[in-house]
């Protein structure tokens, strides 16, 4: 029965996909009424203007483009034209840098807040004000003060991924069951040992949830940040193709962004699974 359900779900997914692609194909196929134009003039115009061709590419075009990118993901034709693989690698490197710094900052502070009601109250207003700020709003400030666009992008990733981890860590640490802490006290464990051996394992699932949310946000933000500063990265690729009004490439990039985002999320889900425990 279980296999049957998976199979059926798969079939429905395929059907939906087929419907979507079919509708897409029909929606974009064909050309509008051919506009009467002087041939000299028509030579200077694009297909959208001359044949009333839809500005939206069809699924076949996008498929062909994806295949092209898959065949040669690491080409390098100069500073401003690199393969999709290289661009994705730049973006992932930036996300990881910003994200790891955020982990290093958020988890210790989260512990502090979770373990000390005083610090929790004292830091609360700052967190509440800083948390809802769109990470991109930091960009001009970062560019101006850090004076380096690469580090500014990493800073933006850092600032957007720090909050979910911080809040989740604090929450996880604060809600470790009292009895377990009491047992630790009875056994005369040092505070450091308690934090490491009792609180960390107990709070780990909550912390990992925060980390999973964060990596998702970081991946969302990097695209926008790179569109802003340019140079390298998948966000720059999207911007550069937007500049060329190449919707085909933009759609291709969107799909790749989705795939990488899913991979990152699945990775965190694995980790989360590893630290889960039954109460």
């Amino acid at each position: 029965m279980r296999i049957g359900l998976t199979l059926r779900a798969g079939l429905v997914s395929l059907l939906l996909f087929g419907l979507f692609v079919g509708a897409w194909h029909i929606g974009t196929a064909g050309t509008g009424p051919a506009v009467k134009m002087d041939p000299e003039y028509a030579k200077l115009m694009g297909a959208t203007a001359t044949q009333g061709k839809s500005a939206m590419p069809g699924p076949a075009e996008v498929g062909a483009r994806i295949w092209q990118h898959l065949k040669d993901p690491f080409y390098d034709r100069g500073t401003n034209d690199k393969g999709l693989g290289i661009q994705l690698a730049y973006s992932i490197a930036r996300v990881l840098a910003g994200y790891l710094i955020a982990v290093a900052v958020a988890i210790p502070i989260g512990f502090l807040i979770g373990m000390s009601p005083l610090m929790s109250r004292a830091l609360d207003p700052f967190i509440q004000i800083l948390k809802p700020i769109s990470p991109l709003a930091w960009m001009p400030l970062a560019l101006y003060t850090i004076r380096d666009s690469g580090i500014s992008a990493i800073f933006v990733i850092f600032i957007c991924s720090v909050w979910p981890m911080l809040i989740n860590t604090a929450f996880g640490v604060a809600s470790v069951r009292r009895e377990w802490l009491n047992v630790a006290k009875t056994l005369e464990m040092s505070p450091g040992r308690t934090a490491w051996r009792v609180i960390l394992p107990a709070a780990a699932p909550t912390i990992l949830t925060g980390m999973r949310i964060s990596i998702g946000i970081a991946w969302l933000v990097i695209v926008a940040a790179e569109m802003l500063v340019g140079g390298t990265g998948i966000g720059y690729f999207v911007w550069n193709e937007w500049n060329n009004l190449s919707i085909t490439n933009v759609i291709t990039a969107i799909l790749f962004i989705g795939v990488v985002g899913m991979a990152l999320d699945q990775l965190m889900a694995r980790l989360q699974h590893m630290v889960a425990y039954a109460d």
Partner: protein
Amino acid sequence: MTFDDPLDAERSLPARGCACGGHATQADHDRAVAASGDERLARIVQSAVVRALFPEERSRRAFLRAVGASTALAVIAQAFPLGMATEVFAQAAAPEKKDLKVGFIPITCATPIIMAHPMGFYSKHGLNVEVVKTAGWAVIRDKTLNKEYDAAHMLSPMPLAITLGAGSNPIPYTMPAVENINGQAITLAVKHKDKRDPKRWKGFKFAVPFDYSMHNYLLRYYVAEHGIDPDTDIQIRAIPPPEMVANLRADNIDGFLAPDPVNQRAVYDGVGFIHVLSKEIWDRHPCCAFAASKAFVTQMPNTYAALLKSIIDATAFASKPENRKQIAEAIAPANYLNQPVTVVEQVLTGTFADGLGNVRTVPDRIDFDPFPWHSFAVWIMTQMKRWGQIKGDVDYAKIAREVYLATDTARLMTEVGLTPPAATSKSFVVMGKTFDPAKPEDYVRSFAIKRAA
């Protein structure tokens, strides 16, 4: 081609006859150019010194008439070692730094900066330059101020704005070369085909690339001349050029005054039509510029000279109509402009579809001339003042001199075999109204629609 003999009492240095002003006809000029060489270099140095000694044209000629050219030269050589100065100029000193980064925005205005890379103008002058595509003007400004870029493609008003501290902290900035002249246009959405009269534009939303841009000033000037107040009757917002066509298609804006290839791209995609070319507003107006911080110019003079020489060289190459097709092919790929070749070609050759069904031929739709006229700077500052971007008294002439490095450009133009104009200021006509660079304040006051008090 050289500055002609500055020691000739009968000669007038300001322009007359040929391009350099020294010959009766262009043919004489060309013949003289062919004969030049070492002698030319000596002339350049003499000329610079004589000009410095006699800023007044009349007193120079009076002096030379009184003592004669050879005596004058001997007297000057006593005080100033002309021979040595000539040698210093002749030795092309090695650049202090070879690997440079230059930022650009993907528009045809940047043609000299971009093409110098694939067509080898940088390497010809001993530099290894990386040209980096940048997302917008604010970012290019910040990256240049952060020293991530050694020099950059900017809008010609930006170095003035940066120096004046409008829109950023005041930092001494220089603009040693204009990249292109003309090359912009007002494009309107196709649905406004019948609204060609600007008086009917009330309520329109327009886009310009940046607040401190020729585009902003030209659009404001154009509508104001038609009695439309650009601040209250229409809306003008800054949108980076690459995003303009997408916004026009999405109906977010009614039109834009933008650099090419944006205008031609809107036509190519059947989204808009070209209402007027900017050359029809002000023929031979400057647009984009090559800019560097003053620190770069003073700390690395040889690198700066080599870089500027490459740009001037490229500009000269681009100014020849027969080279334009080749340039279009070189700069259209994804690494540079990332546009269909035919769009770039239409812009550069000036044979283009206007979006209304006509093929127009305007060979100087865009042209390239590196000379940073001081009067350009003064005009730009009058418009900044007119629209309230800068307040109070402005020392127009001084800032123009400090930012627009016309003398450097003139010297390097001669070195690469071009003809710099004899003066650094000229009067010009914008929409039928003459601008006198000597009277900027009167000019600002003369407008009916303005923000300045």
